[in-house]
């Protein structure tokens, strides 16, 4: 009762009802200029620790990446700096299509970018360009050699700038968005301690490119934020699209990608075949060397990859079996095929 009264009161009296979580959307030109003048990131290569992405920017990036498969696509990010975090408020796509090895903005794309940015100013989006994003369809979120040099260039001339990578294929199979945000170190700077990153399975064709440049950049922690209104809308949206959740099957939609992953694993294993004879066990190390990540032999890495593929396939199958149980039971028969469920649950 009191709740309704409060709400009617606030509407009638034109009280701007915003929760504190919406403050992040406010554009403050004064604070913006101030932090750009100080530019603390130019003194500390490790200045930025996290990257906050708005829900809208994220969804636009994923949709754009998905529409471009199998090509790499790229676009620009608008936002601002808040403390040690780069806040991304919006993204827009560039009409550039990458080939397998290069995604570079040519003259046409630069024109588009400038025109779009100027247009944004008049349409009420005054934030600066603070980054770029591109997609790696099917081969994970990391920076290739060309990406690293592009980003180093960007950071030299248009800092603050962040590089975001999104993988639409992995997103579809894993059921959650595969995204990463990176900052490169300036040239001639080697980080004090090489933090070991989480293992990612990378296709054979790209693995060299990944390894060579892996120490020239570091990942930022990615957080997603949304406004209070968006939270409400998302709750309401769920009421409508839960049907899609049940009806869509990841096994069917990802067939091509799963097949390519298996083919790649096959290649890796045949490569392993030659080298496995020469593997040596390592003696247990003393405590002092626990900083260094133990170099795993190739076979162990392939094991991780194969486990990942199998686990994802099992997820898809679980969904299918659940649906089968729900929709195929004859009312009144009472006989359910629970043995099938039991089998599929015995995952390694």
């Amino acid at each position: 009762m009191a709740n309704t009264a409060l709400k009617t009161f606030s509407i009638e009296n034109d009280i701007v009802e915003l929760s504190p979580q919406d403050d992040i959307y406010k554009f403050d030109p004064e604070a913006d200029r101030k932090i750009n003048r100080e530019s603390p990131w130019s003194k500390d290569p490790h200045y930025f620790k996290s990257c906050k992405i708005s829900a809208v920017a994220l969804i636009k990036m994923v949709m754009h990446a998905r529409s471009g498969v199998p090509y790499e696509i790229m676009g620009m990010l608008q936002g601002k700096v808040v403390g040690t975090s780069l806040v991304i408020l919006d993204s827009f796509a560039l009409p550039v299509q990458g080939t397998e090895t290069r995604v570079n903005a040519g003259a046409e794309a630069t024109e588009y970018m400038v025109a779009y940015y100027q247009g944004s100013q008049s349409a009420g989006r005054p934030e600066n360009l603070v980054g770029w994003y591109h997609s790696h369809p099917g081969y994970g979120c990391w920076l290739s050699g060309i990406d690293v040099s592009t980003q180093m260039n960007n950071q030299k001339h248009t800092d603050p700038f962040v590089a975001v990578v999104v993988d639409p294929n992995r997103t579809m199979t894993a059921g959650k968005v595969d995204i990463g945000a990176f900052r490169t170190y300036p040239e001639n700077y080697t980080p004090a301690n090489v933090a070991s990153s989480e293992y990612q399975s990378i296709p054979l064709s790209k693995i060299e490119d990944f390894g060579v440049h892996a120490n020239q950049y570091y990942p930022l922690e990615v957080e997603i934020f949304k406004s209070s209104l968006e939270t409400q809308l998302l709750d309401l949206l769920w009421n409508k699209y839960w049907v899609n959740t049940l009806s869509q099957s990841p096994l069917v939609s990802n067939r091509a990608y799963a097949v390519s992953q298996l083919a790649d694993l096959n290649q890796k294993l045949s490569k392993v075949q030659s080298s496995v004879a020469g593997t040596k066990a390592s003696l247990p190390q003393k405590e002092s060397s626990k900083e260094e990540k133990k170099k795993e032999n190739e076979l162990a890495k392939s094991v991780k990859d194969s486990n990942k593929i199998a686990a994802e396939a099992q997820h898809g199958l679980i969904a299918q079996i659940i649906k089968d149980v729900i929709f195929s039971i004859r009312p009144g028969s009472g006989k359910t095929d629970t043995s099938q469920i039991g089998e599929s649950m015995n995952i390694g």
Partner: protein
Amino acid sequence: MSAMDTDHEELSVVLSSTTTSGLSIALHPLPILNISEHFIRLKLEKQTHLPFTLGALLGTQNGREVEIVNTFELALEDDGEAIDHSFLVNRRDQYKQVFPSLEFIGWYTVAPIPTSRHIELHSQFTGYCSTPLLLILQPTANLIGSVDGTSQNLPFKAYEQTIEIKDRTSRSVFVEASYTVETGEAERIAVDWTAKGGGSGTSLESHLQTQRAAVKMLHDRILVLIQYVTSVIAAEAPTDHGILRAISALLASLPASENKTFREEFNTESEDVQLTALLASLTKSTSILNDLVDKHSLLTTSREDRFGAGGGAARRTRLQMGSARIGDWH
């Protein structure tokens, strides 16, 4: 009957709800979130409760089927009445370059109900699209509706323009159109992930959680149906034969997958998946075996180094012991 508001100031521009448009509209989540974000930003910037928000809708239109996929903001000219047409054309062409399949299909704004001002604005869009749509976000309905918790509808309404003939004069009015929410798979995953705050957690756990949430919704809806039917039997609720027919058709279509080809396909698919799991565990066992062999050879060679040449016979015994140990594994 159209709303008979006979005082001359404000005739309602919306036809009453008994007439609905024949369009079937599919609305994606992205436009919904875009519009709400635009609204929030303007609210913050102008510090008013209901800032005038204006933007364009992009999508595809096939006859009577319309799909709204994306949006972008629009600017007004300085007088506040005319739209900035050059900006619209520029933006629209820019989006065309990146998404060639999307077209301009309408515009959106934020207001409780459409008014004559919207009719005027609407007429400015007809140059770009033969039948533009109007999509409205109703902020006040959202705020109040969430109190009692029963409002499960999105606070959006879609309208189509039509001509109403009354007293031998015609005027343009809006007629409401119903819409459904559609998503592509990638969009659904992205929306779902942001709804949960973008965290991670083991993927099996999150996958099962989404499935469970969806199944729970299905269960809740079925409970509602059951409740309705029991109350009809107990003569507490009015019997609507249309609904009862629909329910019985639904039941008759179960079990949904008795079809033989479906069964075969389904079994093949599950066999493929289990095969993948088998291969994965085989790979794992080979790796473990490899490690074992490595460690074993490490042990045996180091012992040889220690005991030197005199260990010819000793070497053989140790190898035998080693292999006997492996033999114990069977």
